[in-house]
Structures are given as C-alpha cells and as structure tokens.
C-alpha cells in the first residue's frame, strides 16, 4: 500500500511536490522559531552564570543586564571608583570585578576589566573561562588584550597580534583609537555565550585610550577616513574625557594595578548567596550615588516577559503557516479525487475494498506529511548552516545541530498526526464515493 501510494503521488509529483514544500516550510518555521527562542534563552542564561549581582548606575535592570553581560545597547553615565571600593569592602562580597565599556573593536564590544574577571566569570552551568592560546592579562602589559573565540576566528587573531579599538559601538567607526594599540596576549576557548564576541583589555589600557586626547575636532567627518581600512584619525575622540591620573593611594594601586576614575558596572560574587537580597537593598538605598543592583536571573525573567508576547505571536504565525500547509494538502487530495474516480473503480474491480481505498488516501497524506517533515528538517539544517555565522556574529546566538529535544519530537509527532487527521476529510469522501460508484467507471 505504501509503495502504491508513493507511485500514485509520483504520478502527481508537481502538485505533490508543492504540497510537500508548503508543509516543509511550515515545519522549518515552527521548529526554527522554537530553536531560535531556546538558543537565545540558553545563550543568555549561560552568559550570566556565577554573577550574583550586577551593579551599575541607576537604570532599568534589563538594560543593565543587556549592556553589561551581552554588550548590547548603551551604557549609563558611569559610576565612581569609590562606589566600587565601597562594594568591594562590603562583608557579604566575596569578589568584585569592575567593568568598563563603550568602545568596540571592529564592531565587537571592548570590555575594560581586571584579571579577576577571568577568575570569576562562569558560563554554561558553571564552567570557568579557558584559554585556547596565550595567557590572560600579562604582568608587563597594560596594553594586553584577551579576545573571545569568535573575534579571534573572524579576524584570524593569535597572541602577539596588535589591534586597534574604536570609540562607540557601531561596526563602522570613524573614531579610532589608533594611538593606543593593544597586543593580544590570549585567545579564549569558545563558550557559546556573548564572551566569544568580546575583547577584553585592562582597566589601565582602557583608560590609556582616553588620556592621549587632544581637543575634539568640530566635525568628525572632516578628518575621518571613510574607508574602514585606512583610518588616519588621531584626535576624533569625544568621550571619556573625565579621566585624571589616579595614583593617590599606593595600596589600592597595588591591589588593582590601575584605578580608573569611573567605571560602568561591577560584577559581584557573594560569599553567601542568601544575603543577596539584603545587599541588593543596601546598594539600591545608598544615597551617595544612585546605583542599581540587578539579579541576573530576575532581569532575565523580566526580559523574557517582554519578549514573551513577540514569541507567542511568532509561534502563532508559525502554526498558522502549518495549518495553511495542511489545508493545502487537503485541497490537493480532495481536488484529485474527482479525476481519480476511475482509478478507484478499477481498484475496486480487482478486489480493493472501500476501507482499503480509504487507507490509500490516508497513506498518501502520511507520505506527504512525512516527506514534508523530512524536507522541513533539511531546510532547517540548511538555514541553520547559513544563518549561524550571522546570528552568532550579530547576537551571539548559536543554533547548532542539536539532537531533537523531547519538545521538538512532540512537535514533529503533532504535525504528523495533524496530517493524518486532515486526510480524513478526503478519505471519508472517497470512501462514500467508492461505495456509491461501485464498479461503474465514470469519466
């Protein structure tokens, strides 16, 4: 019966092919939307492991999370170094990592931090950062930089390479810090998180960018070289001009090497995580500087709440497309019934019973749906292959070729069953038709 159905469909391969394509697209869409959503959530959740609190200038918690952990979006005005020291000295705090932001390297965010970052940052269920090559910040160099796996792969960076950063966060910038180059000291192993897309420099190096500034030019386009390659622009810089050399406290200098005037955020780890809410309140209530302490998990939950509506809409649309595909199949099977009456009568005359012909239609639908599912999975894999570099470069999302999760299998099974149920409409019609027609071959 299966072979017979396949032959029969092959005889109508053009229409059958279109039907399969419609189902395939809907399958790819449904699973694609789910995968995108899952990988976004995984990637985000994996990026914020191990940080108990993120402290930044007073602001929206989602925005703080996005800008600090994912390097997406702008940062606030900055917070005073004194606040960092105050946080660091709190008894609840086990470790504190300062974060400076606002520069980019060829579109990838540049983070100014200290060696403690590499020590305390965790990703993907608590794995520490590992080096693929080289070392973390070296003793000697304030100009050392550590690059994420993807940055290294994209530009072919290896330890020893010299890189130049730019101000702001756009991929094309006219505002290059080419007077303050960095030497790559290490390349991180891939983590599948936003860290892969980041460039880490020392606090001192980050500040060094902004000290050697002359007066800002009136019109940046005046002197800016338009091409990304040939940048000759020593003094187009307009930010971070609030830096003073900060060496009044020798003891603190020894601990942190270099103390910037202002930083953008602080990652905190607590010695006892049960104190997290108390500390959060203490930070939020601090009067000397308005700060926000963000619980990454809570901020993520808020983010999902915001994106939840869009996700639901996307999912509804994907299922609507699937529904359309199913209708297309029913239309195709039903439309051909009239012209196939003769075929059914012949089958009846050689001994096929009406239930058998009923089964034939259901089998055809099963074959179409199964082919649609197979093609859909193939299209999805293809789309993943094509979109993966773009998605990971732009958003740090890795789709990957994961094995099917339980939910995906359930989705596939649901689509298959929907195909069978949909086929009952033409199958019941054909059952009645063959009973009424009998053997009289009508044209």
């Amino acid at each position, binding site marked *: 019966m299966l072979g017979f159905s396949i*032959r*029969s469909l*092959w*005889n109508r391969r053009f229409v059958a092919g279109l039907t399969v394509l419609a189902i395939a697209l809907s399958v790819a869409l449904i699973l694609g939307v789910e995968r995108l959503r899952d990988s976004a959530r995984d990637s985000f959740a994996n990026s914020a492991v191990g940080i108990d609190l993120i402290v930044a200038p007073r602001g929206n918690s989602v925005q703080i999370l996005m800008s600090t952990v994912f390097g997406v979006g702008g940062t606030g005005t900055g917070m005073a170094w004194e606040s960092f020291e105050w946080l660091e000295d709190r008894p609840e705090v086990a470790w504190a990592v300062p974060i400076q932001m606002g520069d980019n390297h060829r579109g990838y965010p540049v983070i100014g931090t200290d060696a403690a970052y590499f020590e305390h940052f965790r990703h993907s269920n608590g794995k520490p950062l590992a080096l693929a090559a080289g070392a973390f910040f070296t003793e000697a160099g304030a100009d050392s930089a550590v690059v994420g796996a993807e940055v290294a792969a994209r530009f072919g960076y290896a330890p020893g390479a010299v890189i130049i950063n730019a101000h702001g966060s756009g991929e094309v910038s006219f505002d290059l810090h080419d007077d303050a180059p960095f030497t790559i000291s290490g390349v991180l192993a891939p983590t599948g998180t936003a860290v892969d897309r980041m460039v880490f420099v020392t606090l001192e190096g980050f500040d060094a960018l902004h000290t050697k500034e002359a007066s800002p030019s009136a019109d940046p386009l005046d002197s800016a070289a338009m091409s990304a390659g040939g940048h000759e622009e020593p003094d187009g810089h307009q930010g971070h001009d609030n830096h003073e050399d900060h060496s009044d406290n020798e003891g603190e200098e020894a601990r942190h090497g270099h103390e910037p005037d202002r930083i953008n955020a602080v990652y905190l780890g607590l010695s006892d995580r049960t104190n997290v809410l108390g500390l959060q309140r203490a930070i939020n209530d601090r009067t000397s500087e308005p700060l926000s302490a963000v619980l990454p998990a809570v901020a993520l939950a808020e983010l999902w709440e915001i994106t939840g509506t869009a996700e639901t809409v996307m999912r509804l649309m994907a299922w609507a497309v699937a529904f359309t595909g199913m209708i297309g199949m029913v239309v195709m099977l039903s439309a051909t019934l009239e012209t196939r009456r*003769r*075929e059914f009568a*012949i*089958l*009846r*005359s*050689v*001994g*096929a*019973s*009406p*239930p*058998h012909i009923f089964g034939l239609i259901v089998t055809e639908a099963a074959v179409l749906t199964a082919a649609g599912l197979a093609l859909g999975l193939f299209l999805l894999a293809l789309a993943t292959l094509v979109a993966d570099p773009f998605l990971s470069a732009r958003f740090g999302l890795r789709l990957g070729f994961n094995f099917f999760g339980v939910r995906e299998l359930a989705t596939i099974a649901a689509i298959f069953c929907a195909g069978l149920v949909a086929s009952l409409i033409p199958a019941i019609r054909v059952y009645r038709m063959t009973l009424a027609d*009998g*053997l*009289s*071959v009508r*044209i």
Partner: protein
Amino acid sequence: MTALQIENLAYRWPSAQHDTLGIGSLSLDAGESLFLHGPSGCGKSTLLSAIAGVVAVPRDAVRVAEQDIGTLRGGARDRFRADHIGMIFQVFNLIPWLSALENVLLPCTYSLRRRDRAGDKPAETANRLLDELGLSGPALTSKSANELSVGQQQRVAAARALIGRPDLILADEPTSALDEMSKSAFVDLLARECAAAGTALLFVSHDRSLERHFDRTVDFRDLNRGAL
C-alpha cells in the same frame, strides 16, 4: 462445477420506480463462454454489478462458483470478487501510472487465491499471458499504461482478468472502442484464453457480429422478462 447460477433475480436501484432486473434463470458452466447481447441502457451493466457483488442482491438469487453472493456482506464480497471474478470494462481499464505488467499483477496483490493460482512466479505468468495476447517484450510491458494504444490497453485488461484463473470473467462491452479488425482478434483471443484456463466468460455487447466466437448466445431482452 457451475461458474454462474442465477435464479429469479429481481433488482431495483434504490431511487428507481421499478425493477431494472427481473431474470428468471441463467447459468454458465466452468470454461463456458456466453454472449449476452442487447441494446444500450437495458440493464446489462446492472446485471454485471449484481453478479460482481457491487450492488446488494437478495439471497439465493446469484451464485458464483457455488457461493451465494446475497449472503456475503461488504468486505467479504470484495474479497470474493477478487478471488473468483475477473472484469474487463469498455475503456479505461488500467491504472494509468502503473506499467502494463503491474496492471496485470494487480489482482494478485488483492487476492491470495489468485496469486497462488498464478503459479510460483506471478510475474512470469503475467508476461506469458501478455505474450499470448500479442504484447511481448519488456519494452511494451514496462511502459506505463497511458502510453499504450486503446487496443493494447484492452489486451492488458484481458490479461489482468485472466491472471490467477478466476472462475468467471465479466466483460462489459470491451470491444466498443476497437476497430473491426482488432475487435474480432481480441474476442477470439479472449475466448480462447478463457477456455484454456477453464474460466467461464460472460461477454456483454450490443454488437452481434461477435456472436460466432462464443459457445452460446442469449438476448438480454428475452432473459430480462421480469423487468417492467
């Protein structure tokens, strides 16, 4: 053995005003061929449907291979038809997208009895039948059915009716789409193959020129006296 036995068969289509069939008696021995002629629209096709068990007939009216068709229900009638009856229609007998050979083998997929009786290798038997009916060589038999001429299609249909030596073949005006020459040759071949296989043949046509190929001739109007 009697291939077909009809006694007092009355049949009326569900929406009809009066009986279409009112047949007193008709019987056909194994291997016997009968030419049943009559004008179009007089109920010949209805009779064939009744014999084939496509329409519900009363008990004790129609027996095929000594089985009362009226006692069989639904699926059992379909199975019985597949096992014991071969059919040839006027035109469009074949599944267009199957090859000639596959069309011939169709009854063997629906009936174990026909497959058993088609020998150890049904495909060989099918090829032999096609060969005897003048369709030889893989070039012809592997062609899909809609590429064959009408005459060739009818011969494929005959081979399909014959395979697995059913007890009875019902032929409903199978020659009406053929020209004079092929008509005679086709009927001659069909009658001979039926005789060789021991299969009874009930051949329905309005064309009396074919009469000479058959053992017996019956005028349907004489037979169907009971109908109003």
